[in-house]
């Protein structure tokens, strides 16, 4: 389609066109996702090959000190007088060997089976009481094995770094004759190596609390860890892709019900994220425009009133709202008292109404955020744009659709994307408002307003379906990644197409 045709379309047609483009983008997005993963793997392969070359070069052209450090890490540094560096390498090697030999090894060998015997009942011969003796704990085996694998990878990396560093210092000695001292090394961490100083702790935190747990859960997705296989009294073991098969309803204990639940909740999660994001965005913008209008005085007062919902901790607002809108809550009572209704409105007990209500309450919570963000940007729109629109005879509504909205969309696309992704995983609003209610027998362990994330919560902590929950988490990642990729690409193309002003 030519750009000119697009511009001639009505806003509704443009919207439909955009929507079509989104769905057309799905295959490309999926492709982009897997191609991205593939490219990353290729990149990794390349750098490993490069590292191999460097090691080979060090072995071929290195002197005896460098070659010695292949076996004894830090040897070259120690021999060349870089005591601190050398000692750190050496200590690392010793710790690694001790860890693996004394501790890591005995778990690593059981990784294949995840344990043979969990628990033995022993009758105490003297008292006659049955006692339990615990042996293999699948969870511990998996956990320590993954730690060991991490450690081994880290060791290989440090070892490579050690060899490379040795070769480098050998070259420096040959050309300059002098190496940096320990003092120089430490000083460098405040200057040329400053990023390492700053990022060491933060990255360690991310490694331990995000990367490691995610990898752990990816492993769990291939086990049968559930309520019937709970360590320490029971073992769980590898089951391959069985959880994926169960999820898609092909077999397993839940039959097709599980897949129906997954599909419906996925659809509702996307609908919810769409409406929650755009209702807040558009209504918040309208409120901001009203307050910004020249005709309105006491701007600060209106803003302060709205901002109350941000200042008060969100869980309080949400719990309060869920109480007020309940069957015998204050809203129903007041409406009954005034005679506006003859029986209580089932705000959170009727499936469809509950879905509408969570979006409405979310508007109540979300408008102030949009208002704050939008207010600053609104003031940046050049006044003469509106002036010329007025001269051309455009009313405020037209000016909104022709000037305000396109400008705002152009500037706030990244915000919208992050809001959308955040809403896909919006636990608080749903869980504290309805906790997924009303429950239905059509779904496995889920209610009508449950999002995938609150369903995960229930699957994990109420029903102990750890393996299945991990599978769903992985799928949610794929879905989020693909959606973000498509939206990101499209917003980029839109930006290039009609760069605003």
């Amino acid at each position, binding site marked *: 389609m030519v750009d000119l045709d697009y511009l001639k379309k009505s806003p509704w047609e443009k919207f439909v066109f955009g929507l079509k483009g989104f769905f057309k983008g799905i295959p490309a997005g999926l492709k982009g996702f897997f191609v991205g993963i593939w490219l990353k793997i290729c990149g990794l392969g390349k750098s490993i090959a490069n590292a191999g070359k460097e090691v080979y070069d060090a072995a071929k052209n290195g002197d005896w000190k460098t070659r010695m450090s292949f076996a004894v890490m830090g040897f070259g540094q120690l021999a060349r007088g870089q005591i601190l560096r050398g000692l750190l390498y050496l200590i690392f090697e010793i710790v690694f060997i001790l860890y693996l030999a004394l501790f890591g090894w005995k778990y690593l060998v059981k990784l294949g089976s995840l344990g043979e015997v969990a628990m033995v009942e022993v009758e105490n011969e003297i008292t006659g009481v049955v006692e339990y003796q615990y042996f293999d704990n699948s969870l511990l085996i998996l956990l320590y094995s993954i730690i060991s694998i991490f450690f081994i990878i880290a060791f290989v990396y440090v070892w490579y770094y050690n060899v490379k560093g040795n070769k480098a210092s050998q070259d420096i000695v040959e050309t300059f004759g002098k190496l940096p001292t320990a003092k120089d090394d430490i000083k460098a961490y405040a200057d040329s190596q400053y990023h390492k100083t700053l990022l060491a702790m933060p990255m360690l935190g991310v490694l331990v609390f995000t990367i490691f747990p995610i990898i752990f859960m990816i492993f769990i997705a291939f086990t049968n860890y559930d309520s019937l296989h709970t360590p320490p009294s029971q073992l769980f073991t590898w089951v391959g892709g069985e959880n994926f098969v169960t999820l898609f309803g092909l077999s397993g204990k839940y039959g097709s019900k599980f897949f129906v639940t997954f599909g419906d909740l996925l659809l509702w999660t996307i609908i919810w994220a769409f409406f929650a994001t755009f209702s807040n965005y558009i209504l918040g913008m309208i409120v901001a425009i009203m307050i910004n209008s020249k005709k309105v005085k006491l701007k600060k007062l209106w803003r302060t*009133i709205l901002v109350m919902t941000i*200042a008060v901790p969100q869980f309080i607002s949400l719990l309060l709202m869920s109480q007020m809108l309940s069957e015998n809550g204050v809203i129903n009572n007041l409406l009954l008292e005034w005679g506006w209704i003859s029986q209580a409105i089932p705000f959170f007990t009727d499936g469809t109404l509950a879905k509408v209500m969570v979006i409405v309450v979310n508007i109540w919570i979300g408008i102030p955020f949009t208002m704050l963000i939008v*207010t*600053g940007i609104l003031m940046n729109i050049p006044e003469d744009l509106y002036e010329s629109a007025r001269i051309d005879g455009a009313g405020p509504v037209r000016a909104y659709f022709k000037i305000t909205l396109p400008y705002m969309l152009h500037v706030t696309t990244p915000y919208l994307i992050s809001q959308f992704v955040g809403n896909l*995983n919006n636990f608080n609003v749903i*869980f504290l408002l309805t906790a997924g209610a009303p429950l239905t027998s059509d779904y496995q362990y889920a209610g009508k307003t449950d999002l995938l994330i609150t369903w995960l919560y229930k699957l994990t902590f109420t029903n102990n379906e750890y393996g299945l*929950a991990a599978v769903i988490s992985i799928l949610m990642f794929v879905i989020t990644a693909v959606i973000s990729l498509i939206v990101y690409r499209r917003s980029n193309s839109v930006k290039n197409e009609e760069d605003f002003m």
Partner: protein
Amino acid sequence: MNKSAKQKHYRSKKVAERTTSVVLYVILTVISVIWLFPFFYLVLQSLRGGESGIVRYFWPKEFTFNNYIRLFTDEQIPFGKWYLNTLLISIAVTVVQTIVVVATSYALSRLRFKLRKGIMQLFLILGMFPGFMSMTAIYFILKLIGLSGNLFGLFLVYVGSSAMGYYICKGFFDTIPLALDEAAKIDGATRHQVFIKIILPLSKPIIIYTILTAFMAPWGEYMFSSLIMLGSNGTDSYNVAMGLRLLLQTEYISDYFTVFCAGAVFVSIPITILFFVLQRYYVEGITGGSVKG
């Protein structure tokens, strides 16, 4: 406004303008009522005497401070403990998280090194996994090392991945002209000195924003705390979010609803005051961070 089309033509411009402003004021008043009503109701209920469950009438028949006193005297609910727990965690989280976020943002914004792009991509990808996924694993791990049901465990979980919230702060650092750094470097300053002596003093707004959001988050957080506290005995190490939600469960609500309201007011007041005092920085932070690509 439906019959206005014809009349408008005859009216003077001034009248039309007055009508719009009246309409605007009416709409804004309605909005304000909707927005304030829940909080008004909350305060009203927290001061209600008599029966302490949910009642059918709206306006309290008698007013009392009894609910606030019950918060701290009732043996069933260690509200003082919950409050202290939350305060303690909030302060600890604020200190650590602010340092981590500012350090990460500075490194990613103003230093140039090989893995910079890679780290940002990694954070982006990690952010697409449901946060709940890593939580489950952390729960297992904390349980194995005996830290579940423990405040320290909760603290670790809150601060563990705080580096990933670098985005807004980095956006701020990006706007400071690089010429400043260059000038300082020519004068012989190290990167560390540039950070401490030049950039940090310029970054007061974003640091206050980071502190404010870090401090406020633990007060309203429910998902992570409820997981970590799954293994706790009793309710002593709960935070306020968990404690107050407990009061709304069926076994408590009939006797504790007004106490819940009092607790909610008691939690909200300091946070609300803090927020309004520092609101300027908050607005600067979110508006700055949301528009950059």
